[in-house]
């Protein structure tokens, strides 16, 4: 900041003629936008360039020529299956996460918003939703893995073998519970502002007009919260769709979902003619993410109407 500001200050006089960018109002300030260049360069090098490289490599063959062959990978049965599995895992965990999370939000309204418990719940929610990753995989391995505490407890005390039909924990079904475990907290974080935006006065208004509590719920609460709920559902889907760490820690072999396909493609990068598979997969993934996030921000705009 200081060097930037100093540079801006020292060029005050010299730049008064050449300054036209960003200040058409005729201010005689120096081109302070110079101060934005370090950040701009950094973003270009480590965000824009990697994005272009990731999405571009799918269109380039081994000799650097433009081709659509790489993208054809997205039509292979194995890749399509991975996208299907990813969508299924994301869909199931997003729906369960959204419903349980919405109930949790309703429960949280019983607590004082500035109270200690609310603060702790919020912190725990963000730890589990956003920084768990590998640690959550361990938590569930310790719970329902082969040697897990709950697995062994059920087996020795109740004679119930949860893996009687095969060990599903280290496969795609094993992702469901850990994913739900981080989806519910994410729902709490994203949906709670909408729930706290409900005004008690609206219920009083309904009561004054002779309405029942059920009518208040069906005619006021549901319509007001619907955009936020659907938006959060999309965000949860996107979150599960793009999450890698938990899956990578649980499933060490194979590439059953899209992020693991990218892992396999990156690790086996040396295989001739397969250099651009990771790029094609990344492109497919970004297309899904962009659609989801665009819908999300559309719904978010509707949601905010009630949060002023």
């Amino acid at each position, binding site marked *: 900041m200081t060097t930037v500001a100093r540079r801006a200050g020292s060029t005050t006089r010299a730049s008064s003629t050449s300054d036209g960018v960003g200040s058409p109002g005729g201010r005689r300030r120096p081109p302070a936008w110079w*101060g934005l260049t370090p950040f701009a360069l950094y973003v270009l090098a480590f965000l824009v360039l990697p994005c272009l490289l990731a999405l571009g490599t799918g269109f380039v063959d081994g000799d650097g020529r433009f081709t659509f062959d790489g993208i054809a990978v997205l039509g292979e049965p194995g890749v399509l299956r991975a996208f299907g599995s990813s969508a299924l895992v994301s869909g199931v965990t997003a729906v369960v996460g959204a419903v349980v999370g919405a109930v949790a939000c309703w429960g949280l309204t019983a607590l004082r918003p500035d109270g200690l418990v609310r603060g702790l719940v919020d912190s725990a929610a963000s730890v589990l939703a956003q920084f768990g990753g590998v640690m959550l995989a361990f938590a569930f391995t310790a719970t329902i893995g082969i040697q897990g505490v709950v697995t062994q407890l059920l087996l020795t005390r109740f004679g119930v073998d949860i893996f009687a039909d095969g060990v599903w924990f280290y496969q795609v079904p094993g992702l469901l519970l850990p994913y739900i475990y981080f989806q519910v907290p994410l729902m709490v974080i994203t949906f709670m502002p909408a729930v706290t935006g409900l005004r008690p006065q609206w219920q009083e208004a309904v009561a004054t007009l002779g309405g029942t509590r059920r009518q208040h719920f069906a005619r006021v609460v549901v319509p007001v919260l619907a955009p936020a709920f659907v938006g959060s559902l999309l965000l949860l889907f996107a979150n599960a769709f*793009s999450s890698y760490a938990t899956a990578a820690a649980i499933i060490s072999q194979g590439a059953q979902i899209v992020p693991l396909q990218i892992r396999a493609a990156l690790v086996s990068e040396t295989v001739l003619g397969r250099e651009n598979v990771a790029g094609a997969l*990344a492109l497919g993934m970004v297309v899904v993410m962009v659609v989801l996030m665009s819908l999300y921000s559309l719904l978010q705009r509707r949601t905010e109407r009630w949060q002023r």
Partner: protein
Amino acid sequence: MTASSATARRVALGLIGLVFAVPIAAMVAFSLRSADGSGHDLNHWLAIVDPENERAYRNLVEGVTNSLVLAVVAAVLVLVLLVPAMVLVHLRYPRLARPLELVCLVPITVPAIVLVVGLAPVYSVVSRVAGSGAWTLALAYGITVLPYAYRAVQSDLAGTDLRTLTEAARTLGAGWPRIAARVVVPTLRRGLLAAAFITVAVVLGEFTIASLLNRVTLQTALVQVSRSDPYAAVIFALLALAFAFVLLVAIGRVGTRGPGSSVISPAPLRKARP
């Protein structure tokens, strides 16, 4: 709200809380298992601090050290690159506020697993220029934390009248360096602190990029250790989760300025637009 409804809400919350406590409790129980599997003792915890096992955990120690270095470097990057840009845009180029927000939220739409595909070639250049030191990974982490750090600082920027304060300081004859040190930083200290803490939490939990670029960090070392010694991995995971929780509680204490300014919400902060 009636009393019965309040009770129902508390019961629902309690039930969900109980279910969510199961995996954490299972981790604790798992880490307390005795070697023969029959009972519970503290042996696995003692093994962590036993100097005899130093070699076995060397990788883990290296990972923890690297992650701490990365956390500090990434936090410095955020404070040195992102914060000045945000302050400048807030003070001088309000019309760039929306583009800046969009740029900072891109890492939500482009997840780490996609970014790493493009980062691999970038890092082959970085390691030629800057060496292959562990800290270089922080350059990528500075990007992954953008959405979080942006929100932390933006919620503070929106809640203060920094423009008036800096104009007052200039009227009184202060230069920009002095304004930065005596006005901007003190005014935004909550946001800066929250941004730094959230950066540390994100970096300590990051696995995707580190793992696919073959770096040794806390998370990649944990996965490696878990193959040979799942107990040690679970203990370290518990400690890391606890540490992240403490960081987030600290952010909750310092980082917010009233309701609606949650640092951790992934929702765009439209309300905070100037």
